[in-house]
């Protein structure tokens, strides 16, 4: 009994205490490092036109006399086959990657949460089974394969890539929220709310959803990394950001043709991908610790 009561209190007591959370998060130095790196990357991506040495190199620009230069003081990451500064292009490439991740997450997470809540909370068995079986169908193939197929059947553009990946991403959230919701459906605080005559939408959002915040936030940060990997993979095949715009995956693919002599065209964009994903993963770990401590 005591356990149940405490659990119900927990929901209402769960006001986000920022300084306490930050303390827990900052206990893991790697997560703080990840956050710092990510903030730098995001700022650099937003301010790209102002801080990059050659902002005009992010588009259809050629400067053949300077093509194929190895890294030097004027071009930190060298120049590519038509003489564009790889450093500037990498910073601009981050814009597309981050944009992709933000758009995909903000499209797929609300959809997944809503469907998961409905499937977990509803008392109509057919609705629950229906939603979860559709989820199963989407999860039956690795997201890369179906996203690849869909983007290819549409036309290779960043927008279509975003749509295809979002279509593949909501089922993970649906399943996550569903499992939390269906385990909480018969808790006392939910019954309490039902007895006081709260509407279903209110119960789902105010009583159940706060309990999903921890896992969802952790998953979002980790998924930002995965979505960026997926986007880079699609652009690597040629189904993402179209040249002359600088996609990180596209740059890796273009440079790979010139290995090993002109390695900087591949290695720096590739390292840039690794860096951003690494920082998301480190933050995700920190968040997981933060929420895990709170659970106890």
């Amino acid at each position: 009994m005591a356990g149940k009561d405490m659990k119900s209190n927990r929901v209402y007591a769960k006001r986000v205490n920022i300084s306490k959370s930050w303390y827990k998060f900052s206990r893991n130095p790697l997560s703080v490092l990840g956050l710092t790196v990510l903030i730098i990357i995001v700022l650099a991506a937003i301010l790209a036109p102002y801080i990059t040495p050659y902002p005009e190199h992010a588009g259809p620009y050629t400067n053949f006399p300077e093509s194929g230069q190895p890294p030097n003081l004027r071009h930190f990451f060298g120049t590519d086959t038509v003489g564009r500064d790889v450093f500037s292009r990498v910073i601009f490439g981050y814009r597309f990657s981050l944009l992709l991740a933000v758009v995909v997450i903000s499209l797929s997470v609300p959809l997944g949460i809503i469907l998961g809540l409905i499937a977990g909370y509803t008392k109509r068995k057919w609705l629950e089974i229906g939603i979860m079986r559709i989820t199963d169908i989407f999860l039956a193939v690795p997201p890369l394969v179906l996203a690849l197929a869909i983007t290819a059947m549409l036309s290779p553009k960043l927008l279509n890539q975003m749509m295809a990946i979002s279509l593949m991403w909501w089922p993970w959230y649906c399943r996550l929220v569903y499992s939390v919701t269906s385990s909480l459906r018969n808790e006392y605080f939910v019954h309490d709310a039902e007895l006081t005559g709260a509407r279903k939408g209110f119960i789902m959002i105010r009583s159940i959803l706060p309990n999903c915040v921890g896992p969802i936030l952790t998953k979002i940060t980790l998924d930002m990394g995965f979505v960026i990997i997926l986007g880079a993979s699609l652009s690597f095949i040629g189904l993402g950001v179209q040249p002359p715009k600088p996609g990180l995956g596209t740059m890796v693919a273009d440079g790979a043709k010139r290995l090993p002599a002109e390695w900087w065209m591949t290695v720096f964009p590739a390292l840039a991908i690794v860096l951003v994903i690494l920082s998301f993963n480190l933050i995700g770990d920190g968040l997981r610790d933060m929420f895990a401590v709170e659970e106890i």
Partner: protein
Amino acid sequence: MNRRSRVGKVRKIKVTVEGGWVFHTLTFSLYNIQEYSMLKYIGLRLIHSLFVLFGLSLLIFFIARVMPGDPARVALGPLATEEQVQKLREEIHLDKPFPVQYYYWLRSLLKGDLGRSLYTKRPIVKDLNEYLPATLELVLCSFIISLVFGQVTGVLAGYFRNSWFDGLSRLVSYIGVATPSFVMAIFLLLVFSHILGFIPAVGRISIILRPPPRVTGFIILDSLIAGQFKVALNGLKHIILPALSLAVAHIAQEGRVTRSSIVDNIQKDYVATHVVHGVPTRSVIFKYLLKPSLIPTVSIMGLDFAFIIANAFLVELVFMWPGFARYAVTVMLNKDLNAIVAVVLIVGATFAIVNLIVDIVVSFLDPRIRLQRRGG
């Protein structure tokens, strides 16, 4: 007299114990509820997988048909006349409504026919037969690598937790998980083939060698069957880099999962009991600790396998591996609708089979899951 009777008594007790045991096993094998429920469970899972594959085919078929652009026109190119396009449309039932098209497609699928490629006009089954073994060889190889290395690092890191090895494996795993497999492939290619130069860069075997007669389609296995060890070695050299670049992320992940479950289990009383009783460390680890600790790792293996297949799509491009994934990317870029549907279904079916196997293995590792199923 007294002595004899005592012997007799002992023998009698022994017999009853043995008899009880025999009786027990007999009842279990006769009314083997455990196995019966396992079979039932596998059956249910199979039905579920079939349902999911059916839904998947419907989904991908639907997407393929509602996409803008006429597949017949795409297939014949802009130079074809309207009549030719119309003829092809009728040939592949594109002029009929969607459910009818799906019916035709499903009917031919049940006969084992996946249709013809809109481009090459070759039967897709024939293409798959040619390309699939190469990818399966690669994927299996990398699966084995990730399994072995993931377990070894996980066990070592868990046993020597908070040592330098644990720290190193944590660092490597962070980088491994954050590196997409195609980036890993390029790095490995750059270092081992281009800079160090002792591993060939592309293909399945060197061009100068003749591939062995095809039995399984796995070149290494085939050449071993044919007794050509040189070819097998050459094939092994070719497969090692792509397999490794697919495996690294999963080595990292499985290593971490195994580590944390070893750390969880090592604090339990039964391990302390074994140690106190003087059981050698090695057998404590491998005999008593590893089996329960494997459960979480094995459970994520199905997902790992799926991701290896997906990533093979890119790694095969980097290493020019003549496999299914490269075929898949080609048909996708060509908008070859029939082939795309076939490719997605094949991946889905492989995933379903692997998941089924994983579930069975997990239930053998964990008797509790078996017993739960017996109840329900």
